[in-house]
Each structure stands twice: as structure tokens, then as C-alpha cells.
């Protein structure tokens, strides 16, 4: 029983670490352009890095039919954009001050972060 309890506590610790404490690697935007796919319930890549004070062009391609993924919101930039299925949707980010700008779908089931530095 002790072993089971220890395993349970370790599992909880693992959940906390994996979902909250771990800082995933950001993918850097090259030539100020990046393609982000929306498929299978995620943005891919979801953690992206842009150069501060430089505009960047993000092209979203959605192949995921879930209605939630049809809207992209970037609350920090007051941006909301419909993303049609199986189409390229180009979003031009203005030059951003250093900081983190989360983006997500309408219900926040799909999440990502733009890190500007």
C-alpha cells in the first residue's frame, strides 16, 4: 500500500511539473515568418519566439475541424481572427515590446505563447 501511495504522490508531482513548472523550448521565428499548424487539438509550434520591436508574419493553417479552433485570439494585442478550415490565414504581428503574448482558441482548449525578446 505504501508503494501505491508513493506512486500516487509521485504521479501528482509529475503532473505539476509537466504541466505547470516545465518551460518548453520556444521555436524561433526565422526571417520574420512562421507557419503554425492547427491540427489534432494543438498549435504546432505552440511556443514561439519573435524578435522584440520587429514585425512578424504568422501563417496559420487549420486542418482541425473542431469549432473551437476556428477562432484565434491574442488578448494582449486585442486581436481576434477567424481561421477557415484548410486555408492559409496570414496574421501580421506589429513590432512587439518584450514580453509574453499568449494566444488561444475561443474556449482556450488550444493554447500557445508568443515570446518577444
Amino acid at each position, binding site marked *: *500500500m505504501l508503494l*501505491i*501511495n508513493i506512486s*500516487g504522490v509521485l*504521479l*501528482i508531482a509529475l*503532473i*505539476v511539473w*509537466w*504541466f*505547470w513548472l*516545465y518551460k*518548453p523550448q520556444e521555436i524561433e521565428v526565422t526571417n520574420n*515568418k512562421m*507557419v503554425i499548424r492547427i*491540427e*489534432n*487539438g*494543438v*498549435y*504546432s509550434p*505552440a*511556443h514561439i519566439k519573435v524578435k522584440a520591436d520587429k514585425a512578424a*508574419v504568422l*501563417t496559420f*493553417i487549420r*486542418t482541425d*475541424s*473542431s*469549432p*473551437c479552433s*476556428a*477562432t484565434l*485570439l491574442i*488578448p494582449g494585442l*486585442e486581436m*481576434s481572427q*477567424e481561421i*477557415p*478550415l*484548410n*486555408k*492559409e*490565414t*496570414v496574421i501580421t504581428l506589429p513590432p512587439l515590446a518584450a514580453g509574453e503574448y499568449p494566444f488561444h482558441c*475561443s*474556449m*482556450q*482548449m*488550444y*493554447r500557445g505563447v508568443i515570446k518577444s525578446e
Partner: protein
Amino acid sequence: MGYSAIDSTQEHASLEQPPDSIELIIEGAGCASCVGKIEAALTSVTGVQQAEMNFAARTVTVSGQAESSALIQAIEQAGYNARVVQSNSEAELLDEKEHADLAYYKTLMWKMWIGLALGLPLMIYGLIGGDMTVTTTNERLAWLLVGALTFSVMFFAGKHFFVGAWQSFKNHSANMDTLIALGTGTAWVYSMAVIAVPDLIPDMARHVYFEATAMIIGLINLGLALEVKARGRTSEAIKRLIGLQPKTASVLRDDIELDIPIEQVLLHDIVRVRPGEKIPVDGVIQEGQTAIDESMLTGEPMPVVKNTGDEVTTGTLNKTGSILFKATRVGKDTALAQIIKMVKRAQNSKPPIGRLADVISAYFVPVVMITAVISALAWLNFGPEPALAFAIVSATTVLIIACPCALGLATPMSVMVGVGKAAEAGVLIRNGAALQTASKITAMVLDKTGTITEGAPKVTDIVVANGLTEESILQLAASMESSSEHPLALAIVESAVEKGLSLNRAENFNAIAGHGAEATIQSQRLLLGNEKLMHDRNIDISGYIETAQQLAREAKTPVYFAIDEQLAAVIAVADPIKHDSIDAIKRLQANGIRVVMLTGDNRLTAKAVAEKVGITEFFAEVLPEDKAKKVAELQQQGEIVGMTGDGINDAPALALANVGFAIGTGTDVAIESADITLMRGSLHGLADAVAVSKATLRNIKQNLFGAFIYNVAGVPFAAGVLYPFFGLLLSPVIAGAAMAFSSLTVVMNANRLRLFKAKDH
């Protein structure tokens, strides 16, 4: 980058290469000889195989593999302008979205049937007392077959949950898929373990839960399918707006009338619209007179008469006459396109009330996972036998019942419907924050001129003194004043024109500064002016001085009109109160809102107007720059202030107020200038805006409350907190049904807002 949307079937190639053909609109091509020049310019661009111009339509189709920017540059170098035909109009995008949603709905329904086809018989078998435990070898083999069938259900009907969960997991995030995959996966793995290694599992816990896995997958697919359907209805308002724009337009080019797609209408094209047709682009009437129904944009039920020089707006309906107008705004620049853009943006923005739900959503799924682990441990440590089975059931049920979607949907769904509903009433709400604040307004500041009143002085009374008819008096007075530019004179002339009276030529016109004017018409000596002018000319007005004073007390400006040295009439001019201002102000006051009037006019006029519309609190002789101070004073008294003005003189006050309302005249809206724009002049728009905001916020609160309570009560119940007291433990299948329908309930509740009706007026 390519210049148009591309199918995913060729997405890799398409990202790098433009499509095979592209259509451009050419501007500035006035002669047929331009065709050769443009085609030659295009074929010289690398990658172009062929360029073919349709001169009548001013379009050119280019085939090959060239970038649109290179093509446009080549045309510009040849001396013309060009732009790409927007292949994806709002209507097309909407159409595609509806097709995609329908296809998704059908797929989900199929998946539901696959899940239920296995889950239902298994569940019924269990319910009628069938043995779901594994003891003999034959039972092991039979259940192994069922396990394999359940795996097929998971693969064919639930694969998207598992793939989504895995992808999220790799991204260090978790969502609804994670919970469903973990819940159904746990039930299946445990059941398979019972079959594969029964000896490792206590006798009493050798129970299989394949029915739970199959049923949950079926039910959640059903919930998602119904949600897709219900979501479609939340965007009805935007569909209606998009549907207003006709698909084609009749354009006159080189004296030939062409029916062309709306995307090809150019700036300054002359467009013909016949009675019963919709206005295809924004423009200014060049020829003809008509009445136009603008109710679909402004909510104003009365058609508006339009003459040469008046503006017409895309999507409105031409009722009576045939008109020719010059296109002044086309494509994405039309007022309708701007309204659609604004409504869409507002529909996707979130009011502050949703922030708490957002914070909770961000932590929700891992917290549920931790709760499931704690629940399993609690059962294993303290639960009765079979503790392992109880632990598995409770963990699975916790994972399945928790519904982050209901929380995530609560606010956006209501905002979507509420903002759309407001747009239907001619109220454009800029964002979710404005919507929320508008619902809490306690004081409404109204500017008098142009807001409560028409903003254009008119003749309101003609008290005849000499036996002529009112019309004859007005005709004579207007004829003499047609040479004057005084505001009173303009009001008299305009009133006569409105009544269709023809004006005669006045002779010897003489303006008497500060007093009035005189002139001669057909040998009649006419004199129009104030009391002093009449006294100076020895005209007896003694019987009408009281009449004039009474008119002044009613906020009107009286003038005397004499013919051949005899008083003919007292004419009163005033800025009339809009016909529905009194009712609309009553509606606001009935909502408990303190209504305050501000005006630059004198106290007497202000008092008269305020009394007439039922406002007890007013400030007269307020300079435009002092309006903001009055707003600040009210805020210091603790009021949440709405300020309504025309958006020009009142800009600082509008900006300072908690919610700034700009009153549009017709469809000429200052979309970006205020928190809320009223598309028509009526103050009912204000009352509508407040009513729809209150209804939306109430709806959001119901949704949030429901979603919170559902999760806060559901998760502990699923974990088994009621078991020690009442012996109650929730079945994972019931949890699956509850979860599937909880988010559907939120969408359906938001849809109830569609039934909201602004008060008839």
C-alpha cells in the same frame, strides 16, 4: 507568400508556390488599345504563361506561376493600377464554414453511432443482471473479443481524443481530449488487465468496464455534434449582415450596362439600382430620386427619401425609384463591410467577467487529473472491497465528468449572440468590456442638440393673424428669406421646401442686422423680424405679444411677419424634439438610470426641452470643453456614466465616460470613435443597448454559475464523497452523458438570447 487561400491537399507546395491562375482588376484602362499593352506587360513577367483581358469587365486572368505583387508591379509600370480579385468574400467564407461544420457534424454523428452500437448492448446486458466479471477461461475469451471491439470503437470513433491528448501532452498542455482519453483509456486498460492477468487483481475487483469506454465515446461525440449545430445558430446575426450584400451589380461602362460580380465593381463606377434591388456598394446618387429602406442596418423602420447628392449604403433596399449612383466605397471599405468586421471582432472579444473563468480554465485539467489520483488513492486506502474497482471507477468518473468546455464556452457564446442581437437593433458594440460596462450604467448624460432634438431647426408653429392660410404665409416668408443665410431663414426655407411649396422671386431684399429682413414680392411689401423691428415700423402686434411669449416659453424662437404694414402671422422656429425621445428617456429612467441633459443653449430653452422630455436634471450654457468636467463630477458621485453625443464636439466627454455612445445619423457611423455606436438617431438605441447588455450579462452569469456549480458539485460527487453517507457512487457512463450535455446546455442557454427582443418602438 501566396496571395490566396489554398486547399490543404496541396499545402506543402502551396506555401511556396502561387496557384495556377489569378484574376486581377485593372483600374485606369479607358480604351480598348490598353488591352494589348496590359497583356504584353503581364506576359513579360517571369512565370506567366498567358494573360487574357476582359476589357468590358476590366479584369485580366493570368495563368502561370508568378507572384501577384510582380504582376501588379508590371501593370503599374505600364501606367495602370491593379488589385487582386478577392476570391474569398465574407459570403464565400461563411458558406465554406457552414459546409465544413456540416461535414464535421456528420462525422461526429457517425462516431456517436459506432460508440453506442457497442456501448448500448453492453450496458443493457449489465443492467439486466448480466455478469460483467471475469472468472472462467471462456469468460476471459469472450471479454477479450469485446475488449478488441471496444478498441476498434476507440480507434474509429475516439481516435481524435487520443491523438489530441497526446499532442497536447507533448506540448505540456492538457485539454478536454486529455480528460476523455485518460478516462476512457483507464477503463479499457483496467478491463484488459482483468482479462490478461486476473490473478494480480483481487477476486471482487475482476470487473470489466468496456461499456463505459464505448458509451462515453459515443455520448461525447453526440454532445460535440449537437454543440456544432447549436453554435451555428449563435452566428445568425452576422450571417444576416453578410447576406445583405448582393452578389452582382449593374454597372455602366462606356454606356453599356454590365451585370458584374460585386468584387469587380471599381471606385467611381456608375451603378444602376432599380426598385426592389439592394444597393451593391456605397455611393452618392447622381441621378434619380427614391426611398430607401435602411432598417436592416439602422433598425429605423421608416424608409429614407434620397435625392441626387445623397449617400446610399451597401445592403440597404431601394424601394421606389430607379437611381444611378457613383461608387465611393467598394469591397472591404464599404460601411457594411466595416460593420461586419466590427461586429465579428466584438463577438470574439471577452468582457472582464470572463477573466476568472479563463484563469480557472488554464489550471483546470491538471487539477482534475490530480483530483482523480487523490480520489483513487483515497478509495485504495480507506474504501471498502473491492477497493481497486472503486478506485478505478471513481478516477475514471472524475476525469470524465469534469467539463472545462462549459467554463470556456460560458462567456464567448453569450457575447457572440448578444453583440449580434445588438447589431440587429442598429447598436454596434465595440468590445466585450463596453458590453459589460453598459449593463452597469447608473447615469446617462445626453447632449441636447442632435441627440434629444433633431439638430436642425424647423418651423414649428404659424399663428395666422390676417386670414391667409398657413401655407401661403410660409410660401411668402420662405420666398423672401431664400436670399438670406440666417439660420432662422434657412429653417423657414427648408420647411417650405419640405412641404413642396414653390418659391417666388423676391425683390429689394434687405437684411436688417439683428432685427430681421424686408423684401417685395409681387408688389407686396414683406417684413419679417423681432418685436423691435415691428415697433420701429409702427406695426400693431399688441394682440400677439402674449402668443409670442408663450412660444418662447416652449423653447421656440418667435418672429413676426407683416404684409403691407399689417401683421400677418407669428412664425415660431425651433429645433424639434425627436418624436421618440420622450419614450426612450422614459425607458432609461424605468431602468433606474439617472438621465442628465447637457447643452450649450440658454437656460430657458434648456428648461423647456428638459421639462418636455421628462428630465429633471439639466445643465445649460455648458461649453463643449466643460462637458467632460460634468461627466467627471458624476463619476465622483459614484455613478457609472454613459455619455451620448454626436462624437465631434463631445469627443473628450465621450472618452472620459465609462461608456461613450456615438449617435450616427443614418448609416454614416463613426465606427471607431465610441464604445457603442447607434446607427440611427433615435434614443431608443440607447435603451436597446442598455437592455441587450443587461440581458447578455445576465446570460453570461447564468452560464458561468451553471458551469462552476456543475464542476464544483460534479467532481466531488464523481470522486465518491457521498458514498460514505448515502452509498452513492456515480457511474462513468452517467458522467459521460452529463459532461457531453453540460457544454451543450451552455450553448443552448446562450441561444436563448436570440429570443431577446428590444421593446417595440
